[in-house]
């Protein structure tokens, strides 16, 4: 709703974000830790985690099934392009629509009840979907689906990491602007109110269940688009993308980055991918899923203890400290003498 807040701050923020996204290839091709494929993975994860900002950050509803929608997007793209010859972008749109429909139905059932049902229901939903993907012939069982065609733009195939990066970085920028506009709208204020106090929000005329469901649908669509992008980039999709580990990874990303802010998703993706890369360099790639889960747990605990508002909240903390420092060491203003 934002009654008095400045509009220049966010515009500046997005200009800086666009500049950072544009400069990533120059940096990532020079710094040893990163590659362009790391950059593509980072923007896809940021896009998938972005929807958790309104859902977990504002509505305070924790979904443990965000990767299920990432998987629905990935599998829909893989099936429609390899079996039915549909274009990659149409398959991406179909995946997003399917995810929206599934999230709407699931949300309609879950949000009627009060309490932490979303976490349990989405956990069960993700696990069931992963089990289903291993059994169905259409999804290729444990082997998954190979040979997913790359996306094309204006007839040019996005076959290399750099072109894929630019397209999905652009989509991340657009999605971030869209989510920010939503959060600053009347819808965002009502969603925040529903997160702060559901009973008071309902008593103020807010359709709490309906808002939560809408936030859940938004999160599902963004995850699905990222999942479709992943399938077309990696040319392959398997049940691993649907698993609990992937959902935990997305939650850790948005918690490390900051659940309250749209900058939380890209910052968290940068932080988590960097730490994962570092751990792989130090310990080796054979560390396995159990190591990753342990690492995510440690990262999550540390970020909650040291940076409860995530990396995105760091500037506010530093600014506050600087102001307090100025109060104790600065010159006394003339009018206060």
């Amino acid at each position, binding site marked *: *709703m934002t*009654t008095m807040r400045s509009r220049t701050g966010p515009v500046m923020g997005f200009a800086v974000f666009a500049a950072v996204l544009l400069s990533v290839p120059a940096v990532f091709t020079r710094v040893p830790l990163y590659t362009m494929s790391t950059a593509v993975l980072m923007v896809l994860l940021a896009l998938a985690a972005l929807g958790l900002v309104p859902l977990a950050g504002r509505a305070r509803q924790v979904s443990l099934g965000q990767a299920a929608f990432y998987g629905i997007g990935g599998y829909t793209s893989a099936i429609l392009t390899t079996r039915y010859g549909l274009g990659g972008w149409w398959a991406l749109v179909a995946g997003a629509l399917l995810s929206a429909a599934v999230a709407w139905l699931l949300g309609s059932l879950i949000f009627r009840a009060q309490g932490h049902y979303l976490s349990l229901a989405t956990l069960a939903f993700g696990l069931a979907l992963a089990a289903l993907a291993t059994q169905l012939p259409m999804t290729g069982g444990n082997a998954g689906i190979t040979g997913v065609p790359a996306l094309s733009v204006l007839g040019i195939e996005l076959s290399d990491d750099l072109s894929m990066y630019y397209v999905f970085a652009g989509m991340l920028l657009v999605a971030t602007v869209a989510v920010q506009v939503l959060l600053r709208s009347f819808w965002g204020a009502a969603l925040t109110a529903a997160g*702060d106090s559901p*009973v008071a*929000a309902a*008593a*103020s*005329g807010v359709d709490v269940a309906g808002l939560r469901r809408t936030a859940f649908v938004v999160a599902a669509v963004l995850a699905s688009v990222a999942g479709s992008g992943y399938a077309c980039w990696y040319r392959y999709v398997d049940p691993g993308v649907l698993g609990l580990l992937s959902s935990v990874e997305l939650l850790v990303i948005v918690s490390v980055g900051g659940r309250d802010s749209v900058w939380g998703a890209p910052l968290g993706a940068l932080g988590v991918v960097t730490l994962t890369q570092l751990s792989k360099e130090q310990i080796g790639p054979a560390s396995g899923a159990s190591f990753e889960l342990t690492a995510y747990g440690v990262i999550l605990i540390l970020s909650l203890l040291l940076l409860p508002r995530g990396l995105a909240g760091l500037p506010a903390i530093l600014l506050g400290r600087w102001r307090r420092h100025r109060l104790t060491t600065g010159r006394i203003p003339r009018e206060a003498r």
Partner: protein
Amino acid sequence: MTAALLEVSDVSVRFGGVWALRNLSVRLDGGGIVGLIGANGAGKTTLINVVTGAVRPAQGRVLLDGHDLTAMTAHRAARLGLARTFQNIQLFGSLSVLDNVLMPYRIRHRSTLRQGRARALALLEQVGLADRADGRPYELAYGQQRRLELARALAMAPRLILLDEPLAGMAGRESEEMLTLFGRLREQRVTLLLVEHDVASVLRISDRVLVLDHGRLLADAPAAEVVANPAVRTAYLGDAMGADD
């Protein structure tokens, strides 16, 4: 007989093996302040929760101006002109003081931001918080937070406001200011159902007093009659009021 503003008919609520309300019937005809008193666990907050749709009764009906609220969700009931405050203050801590009032106002009135903002500021002025509009609720003193809750309730242009212990934790002057506000709302023809443990204040300001005891209606009468009621004195008022006689 004209339709009541609020009609609670034969309502029962059970939590496990405990009856919080038992065959309760209450009728409010609109206008004035109705006090609702009773010991802890008498069912006062449960009654508010049933009326506002937060709790579904096991049996009975609740009508607001002829609209059946019994199976209605809380947000739909609120949009019919039913507002409430809470025993434990429930504000939107992430929003500004102004947005706490503006958001419900815009929902109820479907107003533009400009119109809503002017009206929300007027409501904050009414409760003495206009100069704190840009702040956050947690920066307000306790009594101011209670007044902000009231302003937010008024933003729903309510016909009936259910006030759940609005004087709890307040000092003498703050309580008096709040009671003055309630008096002004009575003049504006807003009906108030006042749940409060400060019995002296309730008896002083209420036009009529309901007394609940173990989920049942023990008395429904003007304050003077309630004070004189032997059953009420035995069950709730005890010797405290007797000493004032």
